[in-house]
Every structure is written in C-alpha cells, then in structure tokens.
C-alpha cells in the first residue's frame, strides 16, 4: 500500500545548556553535561536531531534528612551526616551523572544554617565528586536570598545549575547566577503562562535565557502528574513550533515528589494489595520519571539508587536511533 511516513517540520529547536566546567574551562569538574538541543518531539529521532541524552541526578542534603523513608538507610545511612561522602557514594557506587545538593539545612524550620555553612556544604560536594552540580535553596524565599549570593560566589567558575527562581522570588538568584556565570532553574507552579512569563522576566535582567532550565513543577504519578505532563508537552510542542521563550530544557524533582506520597512510603502491612514498600517506592519513581521523559524531561532528579539505574537504562534505549 502507499503509506507515507508522517514527518513534522519544526521551525525551532530547544536551547542547549551545558552544566559544569572542567579545569580548562575554569572549574574543577572532571565531566560536564549538555542537555537540550532537540529538534523533534521526544525520541522521534526519525524526525529531527536529538543531540543530547537526558541525564540523571541523585539528591543529597546538607543535613541528615529528617523523615526520609527507612529504606534509604541501607544506602545512605552511613553518609547522611557527611554530604561530601554522600555525594561520592551517589556518583561512584550508584552512577549518578549529576548531584543535586538541596540546602535544606538552611531552612529556619530545620537547622537554620548560615550562608557560610551552606558554602561549606557545597565545597565538600565539589571536592568529593567530579560531576556537575545542581544546587537548590531551602525553599524559604527570605532565607534563600540570604544564601544564594554566597553559594554562587563559592561555586564561581564551576558553572552550577542553581535553583530555584520563582515568579515571586527570582531577582536575587538571577543576579547571583548572572554575577558568577551559573545556569538557573526557573520554576513555575504548574502554570504554562507563568513559566513563559518567568523566562521572559529573567531575560529582562540581562540573564542569557539560553542558560535557563525550566521546572514546570511536576507531581508524582497518582498526584496530578498529568498536569505537569501536559504542560511539558505543550511547552515542548510550542517551542518546536517557534515559541522561543519556551524552548528550554526541563528538570523534574522526581524523588522529592514521589517520596512524599503515601504510596511510596506506606508499609505493606497497611496496604497488602499494593505490594512490598521498597520496590513499590522505586517503581513509583520509575513510572513518574519515565512518563515525564516521554513528555520531554531533560534532567531527572531521583532519590533511590535502583530507580536511577533503571531510568538510565531506559534513557539508553530511548536514545537509540529510529528511522524509516
């Protein structure tokens, strides 16, 4: 029969962002990652170039994380109190391609750590591993604004990915990232208009918008992931169609979202029909991450070493060529 392959033509491509800097580039990383640059919808290689594979990160905290499920003790329990060693384990034993350092200790409701302490935590991570680093504040605007400048400064030259800039609080972080040449995460609350607006506002501060990674805010499977999923699909399709303000790579805090849920944490005794707790939590991360990869996710920040291993393999498979 006369069947013609349907190939879409796109007018635009996603911007390409490199994170991390080697010695030659003024940093101390032994590797860098480059994400974005897609010229087609996710993994439709036959349709356009998809030059860079999505990357995986594991999340580490500057304090022993209160409330993490006990199943993590066997992996991280011995390093919870040493963020450098924690990061090293994530990279050397578990194969993380990036480390996502969450400065939760700065949270006034946690340890209320100072900017100096945050700087020390970042230094430890930078000294322990060679992969590129994502640094997130504690999530409290006022406190984050106290620490961002110091953190940016101490990571100068390393080409960090810093977050998060939000509509109500983007100026300090943008200025810090601009001053010390870091990339930035622009986070919007499951709202595509705010996502676009925020990218534009950050650009208005003379920040190069090709250095933005968008976080459209995802949720876990079963908790409204479909909203974030559809926003990512719309953003990506719109971007390929010519909307430059949306043509940014995307990041998702999958571990953070998934391990908040009852389904990842509840012991099997509470819900026998849901199966064993740890594999259930891992699968919850895997399904959440994989579905979002299919919507265009570029950085998957995970928590469980097994989720990371599986998601990496899926990415290997998705990056194999397809053609007609």
């Amino acid at each position, binding site marked *: *029969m006369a*069947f013609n*392959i*349907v190939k879409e033509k796109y007018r635009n491509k996603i911007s390409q962002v490199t994170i991390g800097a080697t010695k030659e580039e003024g940093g101390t990383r032994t590797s860098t990652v480059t994400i974005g640059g897609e010229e087609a919808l996710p*993994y*439709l*290689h036959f349709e356009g170039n998809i030059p860079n594979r999505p990357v995986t990160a594991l999340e580490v905290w500057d304090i022993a994380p209160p409330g993490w499920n006990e199943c993590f003790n066997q992996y991280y329990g011995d390093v919870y109190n040493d963020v450098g060693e924690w990061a090293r384990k994530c990279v050397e034993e578990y194969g993380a391609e990036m480390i996502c350092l969450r400065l939760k200790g700065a949270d006034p*409701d946690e340890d209320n750590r100072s900017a100096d302490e945050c700087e020390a935590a970042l230094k430890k991570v930078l000294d322990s591993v060679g992969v590129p680093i994502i640094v997130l504040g504690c999530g409290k605007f006022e406190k984050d604004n106290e620490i961002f400048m110091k953190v940016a400064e101490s990571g100068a030259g390393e080409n960090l990915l810093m977050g998060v800039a939000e509509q*109500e609080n983007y100026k300090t972080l943008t200025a810090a990232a601009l001053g010390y040449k870091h990339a930035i995460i622009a986070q919007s*609350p*499951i709202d595509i208009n705010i996502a676009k607006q925020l990218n534009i506002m950050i650009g208005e501060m003379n920040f190069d918008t090709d250095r933005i990674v968008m976080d459209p805010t995802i*949720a876990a*499977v*079963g*908790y*409204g*992931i*479909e*909203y974030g*999923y*559809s926003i990512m*699909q*719309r953003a990506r*399709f719109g971007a390929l169609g010519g909307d430059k303000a949306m043509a940014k790579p995307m990041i998702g805090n999958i571990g953070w979202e998934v391990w*908040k*849920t*009852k*389904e990842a*944490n509840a012991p099997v005794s*509470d819900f026998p*029909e*849901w*199966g*064993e707790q740890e*594999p*259930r939590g*891992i*699968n*919850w991360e*895997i*399904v*959440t*991450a*994989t*579905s979002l*990869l*299919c919507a265009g996710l570029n950085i998957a920040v995970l928590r469980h070493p*097994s989720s990371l291993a*599986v*998601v990496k*393999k*899926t990415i290997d*498979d*998705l*990056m*194999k*060529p*397809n*053609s*007609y």
Partner: protein
Amino acid sequence: MGLTGLQIFKLLPKTNCGECDLPTCMAFAMALAQGKTSLDMCPYVSDEAKEQLESAAAPPIKKVTVGTGEFTRAIGDETEIFRHDKRFFNETILAIEVKDTDDVDAKCENFNDLKFERIGMEFVVDAVAVVNDSGDADKFKSAVETAVNKTERCLVLMSEDVDAMAKALEVAADRKPLIYAATNDNYEKMVELAKEKGCPLAVRGNGLMDTAELVDKVVAAGHKDLVIDPGSREMSQTLADLSQIRRAALRRVRTFGYPSMAVTTKEDPMEENSEATVYMSNYAQLIVMKTDEKAALVPLVSWRLNLYTDPQKPIAVEPGLYEVGEVNPDSPVYVTTNFSLTYFIVEGEVEGSKIPSYIISVDTDGISVLTAWADNKFSGDIIAKYIKDLGLEEKVNHKKIVIPGGVAVISGKLEDESGWEVIVGPREASGIPKFAREKFGK
C-alpha cells in the same frame, strides 16, 4: 470528521427526484452533513459513493472490544495526538503473560488478585495473555481452558499456530478473546478463524511498512476487528512506530485506523515497568507484559488513570465542607484550599489516617496553600468567616481546627477572629496520618 455538504453532493446522482423527502440532492446533502437524515433515504446512491460516505463518517480509529461481561474492555476510538487537545478516551489494556508451560492455575489465581484500591477507586489489571510457549496445541488448549475457568477478565491468546489457536478457541471463543496474531505466514487461516468465531484479531508485521501491507491483506480477507502490533521489539523504534500509527490514523490512513499494541521485552520487572510506561505514554492501547508484581503494577495503573483523565476537568474542587468516613460531632476538622491537587492529597491522607474527619475546602480560586496565603486568599479572617458561613459550630461539638503547617503564622488571627482553637498540622500532607494518630487516635 465527516464530509461537508458540498463533498457529499458530489457523490449524489444530482437528479433532484425528491424521493428522499427533500426537494433536491443539494438539500439532501446538506441535511446529511448535519446528521438530519440518513443515507438510506436515497435509493439511487451508488455503492461506491456509499462506501466513501460511510468510511468518512467512521471514527479515525476503530473501536475494538475484547472480552465479555463485567470485564469487557473497549480500546481504540481515539481522536488526539496530545491529551491536552481534548482527551484520551479508552484506557490501555494491560495483559499479563502466562505461559502454557507455567503453572497456569497458580498464575491465574495470582492474577485475579491484581486489583488495587487507591483514592477510593478500584483498579484492575485487565487481561491474561496465555502464551503457547510449549508449541503443543493440546497443551495450549488446556492452559486456555484453565484460564477461562479461573478468571472472568479478558483473554489474549498468543500462538501463531493456527491449529493450536483453533483448539483454544473451542473453549474460549465465547469469551471474545483477542487472537494474537495474524502474521505473513498464517494470516489467511487466522482471519478465517477470527471471522468464524467473531473474535478481535491482532495483526503483527515485521516493522511498520510490512505491517501496513499485512493489515491491508487482512482487511481484504474480510476482518476489521483488528489490533495492530508493528512488530518492532526495540523500545525506541516501537515508540516511533506507535506514534506513526496514531498520526496516520488521525490523517485518515485507513490501514492504520485500528488500536495499536506493544509487547515488552525486558526481563527485569522494574525495567519492564519503565518500558511499559514508555509504550503507554505513546499510544499503545494494549500492552502485553510479564511482571505480575503488585509493586510494579500499582504505579503503572495509576499512570494510566492520570493519562486518560479529562484535562478539561477543573483544577479546582467545589469549596465547602467535605466528610471523610463516618463522621460524628467529635470528628476533627482540617482546613485546606480548593486547588484540586492539594485537596485530593489532603483527602487521601486524611482517609489514610483512618479517623473520620471533616475537611473544609476554602475557595482560593483553585490555588495551593502557600500561593493562596501569599495572595491573601487563605488568611485568618477569610477562614474564620468561612467557618461561620458553613455553620460548622452546629456540626461538631468541639471548637478545634487543624491548619496546614506551612501557614502557622495565621493561627493568631484565625483564633481571634473565629474563637476556635487552632492546631497547627504537619507541613506536608503526608504527615497527616501520623499527626492524626497522635492527636486524635484513641
């Protein structure tokens, strides 16, 4: 998408004889385009025109039904590339493989157990796929017979051996199983079987082009209840093939106007789960997989539910007073916003606490707690007023209300304005069960 009046007019005899009860062929064409009359009112329309008109009126992807009774499942009848453009309609059928060399009885027992309750809904895994792994027709038949007796859910019969399939259908045909599969080598006989038994038929080619040719042959042989397996067993190519089938179908390439399916290849259950997620996210309407581990299937069926929900449904829930469980005047009262994600998470956790409770959903225009608070839509005075409006005082015999931990700062104002005692709850909803046990547990 049907034809326009003008397109229909071109296919009519243009004699204006009036036998269709309309004065002219043009009037008839217009009426037909608007669905106000039916094609058989015109006795003179040619067979060829009839076929063109009928195929233009058919949905772009045929609806195919598998199974009988309570567990009948329909797939196909989809209209979109992206769920956000309208919605996806018919949830992917998940079929779990059982080999005829396995202990079929035990496997089916386990399969029947694959139903889960979450968020007050029951999820089931839809189908058992019996595989003729032995290559023996009698063995296949007896495995299928066991499955027929053991489960009422849908069946997929997997054998390329026409004789084995014929034998299996002797015991399974009235359950309307999906016959898997017609291939280049066996399609003539498989089509005969499927037609004779009135069962849906999977068509598996070797790659997309070959599959297209095979589908055309099968259709020409007279069967149209089809499910298409493009045959690639490599994740990236399968994703591309499934996308092509959906795109082509929506462009009215009739060859691909059927639901599509995929078969996983990964042996490790977690990798397989990820693989199935890829296919489900990329239009597969039926997935055959091996794992029957609950820990893998619960998130997968949850993703299916999410993917197939209607995106037009509002992002806000109706503000008001909600009851979770068998409430009484002693039940605790929680307050949250009417952002649906927040509300449902809180509701799920309150339900998980197993302590019947009230939840007040405050009208915050569907935005979350912290955003609403920053926006002055979730302040002490607004909540105080709402407690009064709801007449909560008459519902409970205590004056205590739990607020989200993230907005502890509103406690003072809320207490002053309402006269209720404010209890600061956990910051994350996931802390509610523990909190509730400690505060309200007996």
